[in-house]
């Protein structure tokens, strides 16, 4: 299976371990993820939080290029990019005024690019026909978790993992339409396919604070501390997540927790792709654990996974 792939900025920088492990796993699972050429910033959540049409141009161009390359699906890994691309695509499909204006805007843009020698599909309207898939969604719907389970060589049997969803994967629910927003199962099923023990905890869909960690860090800290402690109380060894923002708040910021919450013990946080890589038997040394604040290696050693 060959699918075009949109990385986004964070995966090239702060959380490159998310990309490298995800791509390595894809290769192992016989899925060719081809990074699209000339990709630009998706715009963060900014484009879909305002009504201005011009904000939608960046994600619109990305989607249009996928169609022009003859593809009808696009895989993303970052939750923010997934949210922006999927919602922009829905706007293009359902709002004919915005669709027409974006197409007109970009046909003008195309001419400028054409002058610079770049090949464009001129006159071709983008209608929202591309299906935007999260990597997890691709595993579930395109490949199937059974196929994942069949490829697992090192089951994560003793690992008690609490899956954490955050917001961008699931909400707004009618637009994202990935899973039930109040009772999602995709991460649980994914963990199940790798043989891990799933720990259900009530804070799995509560907010990590997102960008509040910059403007009001004390609020984000309190939210994340509650999430981690709830997972621990319910018996989790570690947390699994998919969003780089959540990773920053829940993992990287743990460095400050001990100062604010006396007695706090760091808790390992994995990207879903790191766990998948482990289960597929990839070299644990290549999974980027050195970038974690809470080192997961002792836990993995204890469970005989490294």
């Amino acid at each position: 299976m060959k699918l075009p792939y949109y990385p986004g900025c964070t995966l090239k920088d702060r959380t490159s371990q998310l990309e490298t492990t995800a791509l390595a796993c894809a290769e192992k699972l016989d899925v060719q993820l081809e990074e699209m050429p000339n990709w630009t910033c998706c715009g963060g959540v900014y484009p879909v939080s305002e009504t201005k049409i011009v904000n939608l141009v960046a994600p619109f161009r990305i989607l249009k290029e996928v169609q022009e390359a003859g593809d009808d699906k696009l895989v993303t890994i970052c939750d923010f990019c997934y949210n922006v691309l999927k919602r922009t695509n829905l706007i293009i499909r359902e709002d004919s005024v915005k669709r027409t204006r974006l197409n007109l805007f970009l046909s003008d843009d195309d001419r400028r690019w054409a002058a610079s020698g770049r090949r464009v599909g001129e006159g071709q309207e983008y209608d929202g026909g591309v299906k935007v898939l999260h990597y997890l969604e691709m595993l579930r719907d395109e490949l199937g978790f059974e196929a994942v389970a069949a490829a697992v060589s090192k089951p994560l049997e003793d690992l008690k993992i609490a899956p954490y969803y955050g917001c961008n994967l699931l909400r707004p629910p009618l637009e994202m339409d990935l899973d039930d927003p109040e009772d999602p199962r995709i991460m649980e099923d994914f963990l199940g396919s790798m043989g891990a023990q799933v720990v259900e905890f009530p804070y799995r869909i509560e907010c990590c604070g997102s960008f509040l960690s910059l403007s009001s860090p004390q609020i984000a800290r309190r939210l994340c501390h509650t999430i981690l402690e709830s997972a621990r109380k319910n018996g989790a060894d570690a947390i699994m997540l998919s969003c780089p923002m959540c990773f920053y708040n829940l993992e990287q910021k743990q460095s400050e927790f001990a100062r604010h919450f006396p007695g706090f013990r760091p808790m390992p946080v994995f990207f879903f792709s790191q766990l998948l890589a482990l289960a597929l038997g990839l070299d644990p040394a290549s999974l980027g654990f050195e970038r974690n604040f809470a080192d997961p290696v002792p836990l993995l050693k204890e469970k005989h996974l490294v």
Partner: protein
Amino acid sequence: MKRIGVFVCGCGINIAKTVDVKKVVEEIGHYPGVVYATDYQYMCSDPGQKMIQEAIEREHLDGIIVAACSPTLHEFTFRRASEAVGLNPYQCEIANIREQCSWVHQDKEIATAKAIKITKSIIEKERLNDSLSPISVFMTRRALVIGGGIAGIQAALDIADSGYEVILVEKEPSIGGHMAQLSETFPTLDCSQCILTPKMVEISHHPKIKLLAYSEVVNVGGYVGNFNVKILKKPRYVKEDLCNNCGECFKVCPVVVPNEFERGLGSRYAIYIPFPQAVPSICTIDADACLGLFPLACNKCKEVCEPNAVDYDMKPEIIEETVGAIVVATGYDLLPSEELKEYGNGRNPDIIDGLHFERLLSASGPTQGVIRRPSDGKVPKEVVFVQCAGSRDPEKHLPYCSKFCCMYTAKHALLYKHRVPDGQPYIFYIDVRTAGKGYEEFYHRVSEQEGVVYLRGKVSKIFQDGDGLMVWGVDTLTGKKVEITADMVVLATGAVPAEGSKKLFANLKLACDENGFLSEAHPKLRPVESLTPGFFLAGAAQGPRDIPETVAQAGGAASKVIGMFSQEMLLHDPIVAVVDENLCSGCKICISACPYDAREFDEEKNIVRVNELLCEGCGACVAACPSGATQQQNITDDQIREMVKVVLGE
């Protein structure tokens, strides 16, 4: 040529303001065939009617046109007035110059010209009208009541007490419905079973009532006055006439399953009666649970049954009955908790619904009336009641208000407080709606004197937190987020049409609203009748309602049935389709066009006939007939052609 009279109504200024009534009279007076034309301010008034009647007699009129409001309003008035002086009522026609003209136009000149055209076209129609008389139909004076809850019980008793036979069909092994599950009823706190069971006993002994419990209506054919009903009698595997409910079989049955009547909080055996006061008082074998049926692995109950009532070979049976009227009283169910993902997704045993709590409160319930939470039997000291769980939530769940939850939640909190005096009940609400006699007083008593905490706001999430349940909500009066650690949560889940009613209503061709509840013929003036003649509505099948309202409505439906049965004959409108046998080629297109199954093929003559009693005069077959063999009485193709000519000004 017919002598036609025209009477133009001004309707105060409703018509006269936009239509020059005098001009209409003057113009129409010269129209061929019109021998008399006049106007009057209110034609529907007594003097107006009298004027028409005098003109009919004086001018020897063969037909009259009243140019006035819509025929849905006063056609009956003027036809009755005509009939009283000897004119066939079907020679009286209405030209609608109000709804279709004066009310929708401003320009008087144009509106007047249009009113004249409308009136002329009706004159052309009337010229070719036949004198008709209503079709008399013999009627079977026996009623079918579907559903044996309080609505069906009340309707059946009221009809039977008037001397007419009733067949009462209930799909469960016993009648009683949800009311039998309730503990005490608001606002008087009288015991639900104590007031219900006398009526249930009356049903079982009433000489005019035939009770078919554990049965379902599968098909209804025929028409008002003469419905042919097919009823499926499910096998109980126990002979009804032999079982004496001695209870010996329960002692030996090895299979224990959750009891539906207790909402799964209690258990029963595979051979069971749902509750002690069940009517009929006969055991039933649950085919899904019993080991003795397919294949026979156990026959313990048969061995101990002294009257030899157990019969593993019993088969389903189809019973056919003819009835004249049908009361639909299929009731409601609660929205399944599985729909409420944010409130535990139906997986947490201590998050229960209102009917569960009724069973916990009931003296005959699984805990003998002691409030114990299902997970560990502990007496809960903090209980959160969540109103509007799924109701008034158009985005995610049910858009409507389920009406009885405010009152039963207040009752729940009160009864809980009486049973557990050191416990603390909390109630989350959006609004408290108490529109009923004594309801507001009851609510005030609960909220002010009984130590119940009312919190105005919604609950966002409920989840297990250690030994208890964490309830997250908001108090919108203080603007604060509220977190309560509760031992048990009771959801006042919204009411939805009873399970299986969608299929049944489709089978009976009954109109429903967008939420699946039955539609009434008119929301204000015909609230207990269905749009389909011969069907009447009772209880929560039409929408959520409490016991007093249900009983009143069931009585209303019953009296409509009794009123119908007390007539000598049923009269059917003669505006029906007729077939010219010489023109009909038997192509059967009309059969597929007819929504009422009123067209039937005559094999012998190779033509399609009209069953006049089923025909509602919709005209679909007339339009579909390729040869023009089918014509509608008094709306023939010839009439329509002449009307169109006038309207087009030829």
